[in-house]
């Protein structure tokens, strides 16, 4: 009879434990990264008594979390590629907005204005006021070139700052994983339940996957390890390697710009590992900074160089409009007491390279006095408009890249290319987000808490608990019956 009480007691315990687990699940229904847990119940060891096998009730073997390692890894991978695209789309959209000129005046419109003011000047070459207009338009073009360059530089610098915060995030995640590794081992050695800690570690790994691609494994000594793909192991059990992001000198910087931020192992400064990361936000930032921005900046600088160079080469052939003295044989003197009469540059001689725009400005002569803007090809001929005509034609002549593209085409190609890149990454992002949502859904379907299910379980365990209690009560009544015989 006493075993009957015992059996009832095990029933109470298992139901109570199961109910606890259900409660834990319900209270964690909105905990991010939580995997539902289940109390695994089994029969208590049976005994043989006088030739009969007798059950002795039930017990809880373990509380396990419902979890699929494969889905978890896939989720990490999807997160990684989605974050890569998200970061890329965001940054490209920022850069793209520099070139938005559908409803505002962008460089193309301003260049057009500049060339058209030369057309206007060719219609009234004697008009000195028109030359001021030309000069002002040139100034605006220069300013717009500089606006583009400055915004590109600023975007690059803000990416450097992003590096810093991303690496700081990565470090704290690495730290967290190493710490959890130690905790999990400790608790499991004591025979405790490590489900919640494992959930925590999975969450950190997921966060780390957003920053760069990683893979996780358990090594032969049963240590849990995290490695960044292309870089190397970052965490083994409780041991970790820290990363730092900081300014690098020109010779080791991956984009060749002095002071650019690079990523290093904390204990090995001087050896950047920036380029070795794969996927995730970091790689996305590197790609935008080292390829897209670099590429556009180079193209815009080259465009500015060619533009200034061609305008100069034509402008310097012309003569200023003031009275120019001639030598006895009738040739115009290249200098008079005011200054040069021909060979005047419109822009200051441009420098090739990434600093073209920074140093782009009008030549001193033109800046001093707009009458130094040359319109004619012959001296002392105020109506000669051939220089103005020729300069106005630059925009639509195929002068760039060995005579294959015009200035306008070159500029618009650059913008289109950027637009295509941005459109592509937006499209890819939309797709990746779809896949990510799906994968997330699969994970949630497997590991997520369903309140309906828990409610049903709750009732089930409650009934079981009540029934077990009833068993005990019956057992007690049976005791009463037996004891009452004696009276």
């Amino acid at each position, binding site marked *: 009879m006493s075993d009957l009480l015992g059996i009832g007691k095990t029933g109470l315990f298992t139901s109570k434990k199961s109910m606890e687990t259900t409660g834990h699940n319900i209270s964690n229904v909105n905990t991010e990264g939580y995997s539902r847990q289940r109390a695994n119940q089994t029969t208590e060891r049976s005994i043989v008594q006088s030739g009969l096998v007798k059950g002795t009730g039930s017990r809880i073997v373990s509380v396990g979390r419902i979890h699929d390692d494969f889905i978890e890894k896939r989720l990490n991978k999807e997160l990684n590629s989605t974050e890569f695209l998200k970061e890329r789309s965001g940054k490209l959209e920022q850069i793209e907005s520099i070139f938005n000129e559908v409803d505002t005046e962008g460089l193309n419109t301003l260049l057009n204005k500049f060339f058209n003011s030369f057309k206007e000047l060719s*219609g009234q070459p004697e008009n000195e006021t028109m030359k001021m207009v030309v000069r002002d338009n040139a100034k605006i073009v220069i300013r717009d070139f500089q606006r583009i360059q400055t915004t590109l530089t600023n975007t690059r610098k803000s990416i450097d700052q992003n590096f810093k915060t991303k690496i700081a995030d990565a470090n704290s995640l690495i730290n967290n994983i190493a710490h959890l590794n130690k905790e999990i081992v400790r608790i499991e050695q004591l025979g405790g339940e490590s489900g919640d800690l494992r959930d925590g570690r999975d969450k950190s790994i997921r966060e780390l996957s957003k920053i760069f691609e990683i893979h996780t494994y358990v090594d032969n000594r049963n240590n849990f390890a995290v490695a960044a793909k292309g870089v190397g192991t970052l965490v083994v059990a409780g041991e970790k390697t820290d990363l730092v992001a900081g300014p690098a000198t020109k010779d080791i910087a991956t984009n060749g710009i002095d002071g650019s931020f690079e990523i290093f192992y904390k204990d090995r400064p001087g050896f950047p590992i920036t380029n070795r990361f794969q996927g995730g936000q970091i790689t996305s930032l590197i790609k935008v900074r080292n390829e897209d921005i670099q590429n556009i900046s180079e193209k815009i600088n080259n465009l500015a160089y060619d533009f200034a160079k061609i305008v100069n080469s034509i402008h310097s052939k012309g003569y200023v409009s003031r009275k120019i003295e001639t030598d006895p044989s009738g040739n115009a003197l290249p200098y008079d007491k005011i200054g040069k009469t021909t060979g005047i540059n419109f822009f200051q001689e441009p420098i090739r390279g990434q600093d073209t725009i920074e140093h782009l400005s009008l030549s001193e002569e033109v800046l001093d006095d707009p009458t130094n803007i040359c319109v004619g090809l012959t001296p002392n001929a105020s109506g000669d408009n051939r220089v103005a005509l020729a300069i106005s034609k630059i925009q639509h002549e195929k002068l760039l890249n060995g005579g294959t593209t015009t200035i306008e085409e070159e500029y618009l190609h650059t913008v289109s290319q*950027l637009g295509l890149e941005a459109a592509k990454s937006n499209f890819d992002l939309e797709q990746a987000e779809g896949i990510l949502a799906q994968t997330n859904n699969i994970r949630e379907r497997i590991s997520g808490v369903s309140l309906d299910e828990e409610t049903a379980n709750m009732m089930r365990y409650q009934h079981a608990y009540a029934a077990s209690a009833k068993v005990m009560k019956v057992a007690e009544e049976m005791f009463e019956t037996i004891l009452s015989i004696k009276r």
Partner: protein
Amino acid sequence: MTRVSENSSSASLQFSINKAKKKMEDLQVKGTTLKKIIKPSDDPMANFQGLQAQSVNKDNTQYLRNIGYALSQLNTTESTLEQLAELLVKAKEIAIQQSSDFYGGNIRKNVSHEIIQIRNQALALANKRLGNRYIFSGYKTLDTPFDKEGNYKGDFGHIQLEIAKDFFIPINVHGQEVFFTDNNIKYPPHPLKEFNEFHPSENPPIPSENKDELKNQTPLPARELASVTDDTSRDPFITKNNIFSQLTTLISALENNNTIATQDLLEKIDESISRIITMRTRLGSLVNTVLHTQLQIDTENVENQDFQSKLMDADVAELFSDITKQQHILQTAYQTGKGLMNKSLLNFLS
């Protein structure tokens, strides 16, 4: 059976609502700007073409302005030539009258004063200005082209203007060709011929014939007439017609009562008159060309605007039907969300 958990259903609801809302937002921006393309990535190719069309439009506006300049210059020149022809006709009439022996020497002397006046008037016409520029002084538009003796001080420049893409027309005739002789009139070379920069792949520069070919692609009447004058086979020294010297000779012939010299002059004056009339015809056809081009540009502008609008402007009807559709999708998402999120087993137990 697929298990549905609390988070999976809320996540999928969130995802679909988010997606619908994002589309709504895009449509809203398009609705307020009425533009299909807000940023280059919306449609890189249309952005490219649209901006090019925008440039063409702006260029055309400029060409229309240039056409204005060309027309005022050409019209002034033409009317000046008309007046000049009238003067010469008058001088010729007088010369015819006086070439017979009907009139006596005294009368001829008096009549010579009239020719002096004609000569002065011709000189005034030769120094005619439009605004502050002399119309007959070639490139030297701010210098007086003729001195009192009728010597030409200008140069032989033909000022050209671009009145449509790659279409240049000369807008002036210089004093030499009007008042002296037509032998050295040449159709001006392409204005870009002087600049090696425009022929980066080929050095020396493309010969002007090639450029002419390019110009001939736009068949316009002025081209033929202009090329007729491009006749340099005649020796420039044989016919040296100088209106001022003709008039001066006439004056002295009349003063000296020399009827033979007066008769000799008749033919030369006739030549001058016919030359000026030819020149007027040429200018007239240039004006026609310019007016024709103006019309062309106007039509092109309309077509261009249309093209640009097709590329960049949102189709309002389509846009608003899209917005309505999207609104329905969003509403449905909310409705189903309501059904999904508010119901749980707990509602039915108690």
